[in-house]
Structures are given as C-alpha cells and as structure tokens.
C-alpha cells in the first residue's frame, strides 16, 4: 500500500513538473515573439532603435561567467557541487545573463540525453543573447526540426522572420555575409512559401549579391502577395528599368474565344496567347528551337502530365517588348507544345498582373493601366 502511494505521489510530482515546464516554455516563446513583433511593426526610425536594442543586448551580456554582477548563488553552487540539470535552472541562467554556463550545461545535457525541442530552444535563446547570431539561427531551425506543437512552430517561424529582418538591417551583426543571410531566408521560405515579405527580403538580398535572376524571381513571387505587391513592383522596375506609362492599349487578335498578343522577344516577333489564368508566361519548344540563343540561365523542371513525365525548364530572356513596354531579364517557361505553331507561347499574369488590365472584347484591345 505504501509503495502504491509512493508511486502515485512520484507520478503526480513528475506530471506537475512537466506541466510547469511546458507552461514556462510556451510563455517564454510567446513573450519573445510578442516583443519581436512589436519591434518590427514600428516605423523605420524606430527600426534603428530596434537595432540599438540588439546592440544593447550584446553590450549587456556578461564579460565572463564569473562576472561579479551576475547572481553569485548559481555560480557558487555550480562550482561547489554538481547541479542536476533542469530547464528552469537553464532559463534562470539565461535570464541572469550567464549565457556561457547555460550553453555549457545545455551541451552537456545534449551529450547525455540527446536532442530535443527544448534543448534547441534554449540554445537559440542563449546564443542570440550572447550575440552569436549564426549559431542562434542554426539552433532556431533545429528547434523547428524537433518541435511538434503547431502553435509553437507558428510562433517560432514569426520570431525567426523578425529576427532575420532585424539582422538584415545591421549587416555587421552577421559579418556582412550576405550569402549566409540568403540561406537563412531561403530556409524559412521553405516553411512559409507564400510569404511576400520573405520574397521581398530575398529579392533585395539577391540584388546586393548581384544575382538579378533570383532577385526577379522573388520579386515576382512577392508581387502575388497583395501586402507586398507595391514594393515588389518597385523592385521589378528597378531590375527591369521598365518605364510604365499611365495607360496603354495593346491590340489583340482573336483566336477562338481567346486572344493573341504580339510581342518581341529579343527582337524576334512572337504571338502569345493571352492567358489570365497562367501564373507564368512561356514560349513553345518550336519557337525556342528556331531561336536557341533565347535560352539562357535555365532551371530544369520535371512536369507530371497524364501522358507521363515531361522535362522542361525555366529560362531568362534578356528583353521582352510589348508595344512600348519593355521587360528586361524576364523568366519564361519552355512549353512542350510538339509541332503546334498556331501560337508561340502564353502571356500570363507574371506580366499582366503588374498592371490593372481589362480585355475590351468589342474593340479587341487589352487596356493596361499603371497600378496606383
């Protein structure tokens, strides 16, 4: 009987400890996220204060583990007798600025107990406060590998996004290593592929890295997100040098119940089918066969069709003109159309979507208007 009571009591204590720890974990993540979200929603001027906040955090970290300003009891305890590992103790060490010891304890715990979401969470937090931003980001992504709670994952993704945006404002914090930062944004994008803000950041970073192909790709992706569209248009204009008139009328040629638009691709005349449902524009294989020099900077893609897999690719044309509109370094898809030559490709919303447009069926014209 005594044994049973003992076992029940032990289980109750274990459960209580587990619940308290989970609550603390969720609360810390929530607090971190809240403070970061607040920081990034401030104005540009306040963003500089935000940057200052990081610097303050860096400055405020203890110079050494035996910093006298740090609470003495924990350090003394750790030197005099071994302290059993606990998450709350680790959290306490981080809160008190004793990052080095916290990290050491976490690494010891990792060696003995293996990896877990909590381990990476606290490591990420400690490294960040220590100013080790590369290690911190690595730990944040490892945290996401282990975390299974959907709410925690969402909060962490938002937190990482804001963290990366803060870093981008201060290149010295990551050693001005643009390619490293691009990698981090790309990793995050895998988890949040439709986030226009992330695409915008990547477009800007790729411009810095002088990779206009990738910059344009991400600017186009950002343009699909209404909240990022205006800024994406600016980047595209910067990349393409497109001077967009306020209004433009483009003649259309009926094709069944659809329309063809005449364009020039690097000086070669092409008839493209107007397709408001296509997210990409493309050229037929017979057209590119006739003008092989058009195909540059290819990205292979394998397409699944009812008839089996078909190999295709994306490629970049140097210049595409529609009437007085000029698009530079534009990405197109190769369309496997066999021997069909009724038209030379599709004109999709990657181009049309950059304008307010109306198809005037009576006049057989496409009316484009610059977005306000």
């Amino acid at each position, binding site marked *: 009987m005594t044994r049973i009571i003992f076992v029940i009591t032990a289980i109750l204590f274990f459960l209580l400890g587990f619940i308290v720890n989970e609550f603390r974990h969720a609360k810390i993540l929530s607090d971190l996220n809240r403070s970061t979200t607040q920081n990034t929603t401030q104005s540009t001027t306040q963003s500089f204060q935000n940057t200052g906040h990081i610097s303050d955090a860096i400055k405020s970290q203890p110079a050494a583990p035996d910093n006298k300003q740090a609470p003495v009891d924990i350090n003394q305890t750790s030197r005099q007798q071994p302290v059993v590992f606990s998450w709350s103790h680790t959290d306490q060490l981080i809160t008190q600025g004793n990052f080095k010891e916290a990290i050491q304890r976490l690494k010891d715990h990792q060696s003995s107990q293996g990896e877990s979401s909590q381990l990476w969470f606290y490591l990420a937090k400690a490294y960040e406060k220590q100013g080790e931003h590369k290690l911190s980001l690595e730990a944040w992504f*490892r945290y*996401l*590998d*282990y975390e*299974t*709670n*959907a709410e925690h*994952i969402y909060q962490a993704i938002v937190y990482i996004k804001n963290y990366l945006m803060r870093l981008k404002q201060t290149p010295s914090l990551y050693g001005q290593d643009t390619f490293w930062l691009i990698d981090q944004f790309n990793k995050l994008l*895998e*988890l949040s*592929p439709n986030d226009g803000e992330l695409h915008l950041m990547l477009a800007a970073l790729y411009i810095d890295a002088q990779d206009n192909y990738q910059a344009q790709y991400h600017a186009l*992706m950002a343009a699909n997100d209404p909240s990022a569209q205006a800024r994406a248009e600016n980047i595209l204009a910067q990349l393409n040098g497109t001077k967009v008139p306020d209004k433009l009328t483009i003649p259309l040629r009926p*094709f*069944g119940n*659809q329309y063809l638009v005449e364009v020039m691709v690097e000086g070669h005349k092409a008839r493209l*089918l107007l*397709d408001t*449902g*296509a*997210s*990409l524009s*493309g050229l*037929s294989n017979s057209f590119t066969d006739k003008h092989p020099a058009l195909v540059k900077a290819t*990205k292979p*893609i*394998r*397409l*699944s*069709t*009812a008839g089996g897999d*078909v190999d*295709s690719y*994306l490629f970049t044309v140097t210049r595409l003109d529609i009437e007085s509109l000029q698009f530079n370094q534009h990405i197109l*898809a190769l*369309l*496997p*159309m066999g021997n*069909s030559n*009724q*038209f030379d490709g*599709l004109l*999709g919303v990657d181009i049309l979507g950059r304008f307010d447009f109306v198809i005037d069926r009576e006049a057989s014209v496409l009316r484009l208007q610059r977005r306000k």
Partner: protein
Amino acid sequence: MVFLRSDQEVALNDLLVALRESVDHYNDAIELVDPSPLTPLLREAAIQRSQFIPRLEDAIRQLGDLPSVPDPDKESGEMLIHHVGAALSNDYEPDVIEQRIASDQQLAQLVNDARKNTSEASFTQLMEDIATHITQTLVHLKAMQSA
C-alpha cells in the same frame, strides 16, 4: 547535420504534397472548362480535398516532421501545359477528366503507401477518409468519362 526521415514521415509528406497539388490542379481545371457540367464535380472535389490538408499537416507534425509544400515552378509549368492543351482543343473536358483520373489514381497509390507505413489509429482513420474520398471522386469522374 542530415535528418533521416522515417518511412512513415516520407509517405505522409509525399501524400500531403500530392494532395496540395491535386487541389490546385482541380481549381485550375475549373477555370479551363467553366462553364461545364464538369465544374460542380471539380469544385466539390477541390473543396473536400482541401479539408484533409490540415489533418494531414497535424499528423506529420505529431511525428516530429514539418509539412512539405509543392515546387511552385513545377506546379505552374504543369498548369501551363494544361492551358496550352485547352487553347488548342475544341473540347477540353475529356482531357481534363483523363488528367484528373490519372492524377487521382497516383494519389490513391500514395494513400496505399502511407497506409502500409501507418499503424496509429488516428492516422489510419485519416487514410481511410482520404481513400474513400478519392474512390468516390474517381467513380464520378469515370461516370462523366463514359457519359
């Protein structure tokens, strides 16, 4: 560091990606044939199918993995091929039905693969629900095909 996914994680994530692609293709097909007697079936399939996605995402997270998303370039490229086909055809409905049947048969195969690697009751039920939905959709599509 490289993470090795379990067979179960791989199977569920493959199924999730195929399911997402399938919903996108059903929605795209509606635009290609609308208005058509086929439209309600396509729309209903897209709506019902999209409801399995959050359940499948949760199941993947419960395993400690992260839900995957389709390659947007591949998906856009496939849709362009369908758009070209529709533009060159006087009646594209039979092609759409054929594409959807082929795609749903592949999806059914992925569900079977996932079933083989799934033992938990909650996952098994989810697989059953998806399989039932695909079977019913295939029955309707084949009926339209032979009509």
